[in-house]
């Protein structure tokens, strides 16, 4: 069995798109950040409007109402699935075919938040998230939405300048991929970790310990072309 939570969706162009669903903890953090934003804005409104008497209280109630029901809806639809909290945590809401979320879907998932929060502290939502394959709470199940990681560009900073090499041992496709990955991520991994990884290959490589990393990088370069 493949232990992976990755979601793949086939498009009409026969391409499989994939995405990584976001888990409970990161979603809770995003929710918490949003609560801070909401509390902050409401506090400011409260200070400004409480001075203006009964009419101010009326407006304050309307603001409270709008925030508690429409904060997430507006941000999710107008800002490509991301409330400020989700944006900071790098996650986003999408339909389960990975397209952007619309008004109806967003309203369903955010209104049903009320049922998710039952009986206390999002108990129902957390239980459902823990028991569904893609970490969906009740609102997500009803709306057909998912929370996924927004893939961010991670620049690799080019290939290392090692002399291209031809491997002195046979390599399968998976092996080639691993070695290319090793070369491309040369400035993401610490030197010690790279040495450690290279040592696994140790017996196969025709060089002494200090030059194993360079040699592997060289093979990687040679493979990329």
């Amino acid at each position: 069995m493949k232990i992976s939570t990755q979601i793949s969706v086939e498009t009409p162009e026969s391409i499989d798109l994939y995405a990584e669903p976001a888990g409970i903890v990161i979603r809770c953090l995003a929710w918490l950040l949003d609560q801070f934003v909401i509390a902050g804005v409401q506090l400011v409104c409260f200070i400004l409007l409480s001075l203006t008497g009964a009419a101010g209280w009326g407006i304050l109630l309307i603001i409270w109402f709008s925030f508690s029901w429409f904060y997430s809806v507006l941000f999710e639809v107008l800002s490509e699935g991301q409330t400020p909290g989700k944006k900071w945590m790098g996650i986003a809401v999408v339909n389960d075919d990975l397209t952007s979320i619309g008004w109806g879907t967003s309203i369903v998932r955010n209104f049903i938040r009320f049922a998710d929060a039952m009986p206390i502290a999002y108990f129902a939502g957390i239980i459902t998230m823990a028991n569904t394959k893609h970490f969906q709470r009740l609102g997500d199940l009803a709306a057909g939405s998912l929370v996924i990681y927004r893939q961010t560009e991670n620049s690799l900073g080019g290939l290392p300048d090692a002399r291209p090499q031809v491997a002195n041992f046979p390599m399968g496709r998976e092996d080639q991929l691993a070695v290319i990955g090793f070369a491309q991520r040369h400035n993401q991994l610490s030197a010690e970790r790279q040495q450690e990884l290279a040592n696994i290959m140790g017996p196969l490589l025709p060089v002494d310990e200090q030059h194993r990393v360079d040699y592997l990088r060289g093979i990687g370069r040679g493979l990329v072309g």
Partner: protein
Amino acid sequence: MRQQDFELQYTALWLDLEAWLSTSRWRWRKKKEQEPVSEEFIARVPEAYRLVCHHLALAKKRRYSPHLVDRLNRIVVGCHNRLYAGNPRFRYQWLRFFIIDFPRALHDNSLYVKWATILFLIPGIMLGVLCYFNPEMIYSVMSWDQVREMESMYDPSRRILGREREADTDLFMFGFYIYNNIGIAFREFAGGILLGVYTVFVLLFNGVILGAVTGHLTQLGYYETFYPFVIGHGSFELTAIVLAGAAGLKLGVSIISPGHFTRLGSLREASREAVKIVIGAGVMLLIAAFIEAFWSSKASTPVWVKLSVGAVLWALVLGYIKYMGRRASMMYARVTDGSE
């Protein structure tokens, strides 16, 4: 083809698409310094998208590095989202919603509307009758304080003496009705996912309380203050509570009895319809809040004016639901040719 040659050959196209993806769909979010993507390129986007799909497939097949595959996948996902997204802009959609979508959803789900009406009206009428014939009955559903407060609100002797509410308090009450009533309706809908239990509870509860109050005040002889006050906004408010209940019931029933679908699929289908009903109910409650705060509370308006305006509003609401619903449903069936 080696990966680097492949990248060199197509990077220009990928960069163009990435530039297009980084522009916002929203005019007010356009960044100043960003160079606008040319019209010619936008016209070529679908073609470019198909090419990149091809590149992604090739990159996967040829086992190019995960970094390149990720980048291509990111472009493809982005384009897919843009090209297949619905139009989230309002423009005329709200008009379509009130002429077609909302009344059609009501008409096609009239079974749920009927049941919600029954769950609301039966306890209402029962308690109304009970409280009318038995003055003590009201105390079994409301506390002594609540009864006293409610009685003093509609006491005819106080009304005549008391001056009109100031505009200030009108605005406060408007905010309060929005916060309270629309919140109730939205929760009534959301609670439907708990197998409809919560929705049924809200319907019964509101039926009981409103019925009891009506019966009790009628029995006290306060009808000259009570009925003119409630008839206007009642048209929108009571109907909307029932409609939000129908939306909640639909969610609940879809899980309990999914028919040909899986339970999950059935819930999804149901929520798509139910959300239309609940949005409509929300707007109706907004109108109700406005009427209640700025019209119903005007003590100076003669009773007969209030009653006739109220009657017209009731006729409008019920007529809209009945006739617009049937018309929209027929129109919709003709347009989609029964394929949906």
